[in-house]
């Protein structure tokens, strides 16, 4: 179905970024109002888009300036994209709230909001685009803004890590262009629906498989899979909490989204080879990510290394390549976006009170800050996969999908990872909130931590809600996964939209 609605997730943040840029130098509250309005509008648009695709038989398509596919640039939103757009905007709104209440004025007044909405534009754009070169452009918009966000404030640590982050991403973008060039050279088109049709007709899939592995490296670098995750923990630790929460919650998922998109729509000619590699990489990512976290004794570092093991779960469903497995992946991405960001936000509030991230210097905060402590506990248990929270159901889907195709080793790996996740989450809880009370630094009483908490609790409530409403969630994820497994609808919808021109 042709519609202009799906341009809005890109256009709204773009205009907000521009407006906020012009409000620079005026009262910061003006920018906050603009940011809040825009975030609310994005969520509403996300909900409308989601309700439009919810029946499961429509894919929304937009043809830029009326040029029909495959000649023009198209945007296409199926259920998977709609879920991602909605969740990303919800998480962004929650992170923005913490930025309103906790960010120091140096950072906040120094073009924080324009850059924030630039990154949201890139993220939403990556989710809605139906053209693989456009995906590259949206990635670059997102990355450019993420460089600025990761360095904003210019502490020595941030500068050091941002430079490495920048270099890693320049290399991965270069590889991305190389992969695009190869794909275009072979197929002569860059529209994903058209590519999917043309790749299916190629008899000798070997070159396509080579090309698919280059794409795997590119998206693996962005999504932080084994062995390409080395840059992630340090980069995500350095910026302040609202930025870390957005990075940890949303940014890596864009890489995972792109990987799932190309490995369900384009590169399905040699599933036995490509998807088995993905499965093995998923297992290694889970294990090494979770082992890395055990060794750490710093609140934020544990959380940021855990991003890696969670990415392992997400691509595990892709590696299994069954509808049920993909449904598990989609659920896990949605769950993880919410829960991971909420954990980072709790960390931000805790650090605002204690002034440190080191586990050994904190303790017994449950007495004075029960809301903070128990809120963190619920989010942490959700990450570890304790029923009835959302994390349990996504992992359940993934593991039962593995059992369905008699793949017991990956299930064992996922279970072990879940166990160690529980271990390191309870480690944080016991060190920071349980036990003997340790003295807080001076000025801790003046921190307005109660004002910061609502954003964390909204996300925790969403996680609880996703757990309690497991059946409708499963149905939605299953419908989205079926659309991915059988891209006929996606292709037909994109190719059928008539252009106004030509």
């Amino acid at each position, binding site marked *: 179905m042709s519609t202009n609605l799906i341009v809005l997730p890109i256009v709204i943040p773009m205009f907000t970024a521009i407006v906020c840029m012009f409000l620079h130098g005026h009262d910061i509250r003006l920018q906050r109002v603009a940011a809040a309005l825009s975030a609310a509008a994005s969520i509403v648009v996300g909900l409308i888009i989601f309700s439009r695709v919810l029946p499961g038989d429509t894919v929304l398509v937009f043809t830029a300036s009326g040029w029909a596919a495959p000649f023009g640039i198209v945007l296409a939103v199926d259920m998977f994209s709609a879920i991602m757009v909605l969740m990303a905007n919800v998480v962004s709104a929650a992170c923005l709230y913490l930025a309103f209440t906790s960010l120091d004025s140096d950072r906040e007044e120094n073009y924080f909001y324009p850059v924030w909405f630039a990154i949201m534009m890139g993220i939403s754009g990556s989710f809605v685009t139906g053209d693989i070169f456009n995906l590259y452009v949206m990635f670059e918009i997102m990355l450019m803004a993420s460089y600025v966000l990761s360095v904003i404030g*210019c502490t020595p640590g941030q500068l*050091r890590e941002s430079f490495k982050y*920048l270099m890693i991403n*320049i290399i991965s973008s*270069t590889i991305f*262009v190389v992969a695009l*060039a190869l794909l275009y050279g072979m197929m002569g088109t860059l529209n994903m629906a058209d590519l999917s049709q043309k790749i299916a007709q190629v008899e000798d899939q070997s070159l396509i498989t080579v090309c698919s592995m280059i794409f795997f490296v590119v998206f693996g670098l962005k999504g932080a899979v084994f062995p390409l995750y080395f840059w992630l923990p340090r980069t995500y630790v*350095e910026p302040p909490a609202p930025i870390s929460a957005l990075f940890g919650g949303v940014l890596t998922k864009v890489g995972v989204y792109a990987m799932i998109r190309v490995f369900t729509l384009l590169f399905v000619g040699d599933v036995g080879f490509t998807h088995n590699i993905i499965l093995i990489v998923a297992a290694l990512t889970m294990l090494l990510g979770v082992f890395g976290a055990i060794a750490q004794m710093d609140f934020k570092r544990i959380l940021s290394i855990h991003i890696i093991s969670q990415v392992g779960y997400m691509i595990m469903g892709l590696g299994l390549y069954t509808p049920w497995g993909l449904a598990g992946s989609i659920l896990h991405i949605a769950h993880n976006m919410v829960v991971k960001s909420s954990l980072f936000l709790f960390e931000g509030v805790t650090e605002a009170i204690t002034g440190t991230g080191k586990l050994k210097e904190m303790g017994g905060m449950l007495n004075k800050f029960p809301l903070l402590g128990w809120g963190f506990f619920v989010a942490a248990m959700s990450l570890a996969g304790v029923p009835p929270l959302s994390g349990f159901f996504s992992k359940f889907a993934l593991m039962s999908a593995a059992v369905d195709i008699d793949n017991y080793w990956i299930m064992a790996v996922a279970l072990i990872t879940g166990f160690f996740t529980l271990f390191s989450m309870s480690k944080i809880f016991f060190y920071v909130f349980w036990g003997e009370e340790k003295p807080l630094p001076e000025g801790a009483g003046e921190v307005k931590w109660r004002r910061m908490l609502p954003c964390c609790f909204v996300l925790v409530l969403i996680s609880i809600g996703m757990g309690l409403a497991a059946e409708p969630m499963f149905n939605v994820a299953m419908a989205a996964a079926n659309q991915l497994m059988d891209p006929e609808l996606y292709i037909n919808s994109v190719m059928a939209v008539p252009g106004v021109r030509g």
Partner: protein
Amino acid sequence: MELLISILVGILFAVGVYMMLSHKLLKIIIGTAFLSHGTLLMLMTVGKLKRGAAPIIVDGVENAAYVDPIPQALILTAIVIGFATTAFSLVLAYRCYQELGTDETEQMRGDFTDEH
């Protein structure tokens, strides 16, 4: 011609990677510039290097040899992005040099267990 350009692309990549393996920030950035130039040339080469008319269809002219316009559009986009990224990395490197007092990556290494 394609072969020649392909070899050139290979040389550019080799130079870029070699530069990126050095310890100085500036050399690394120049290395990335070489890499991105290599990819741009590669994009152009996959569109087939040939002479031809601009791809504008005129009434009455049939079977004219057109040049594929898409790689050029892609290159244009990639140039803009590469330009922005290089500019940003130069500024970042300068600021790193100011704040950290060094442009040696060895000395910039932050230990993951130390204070920050």
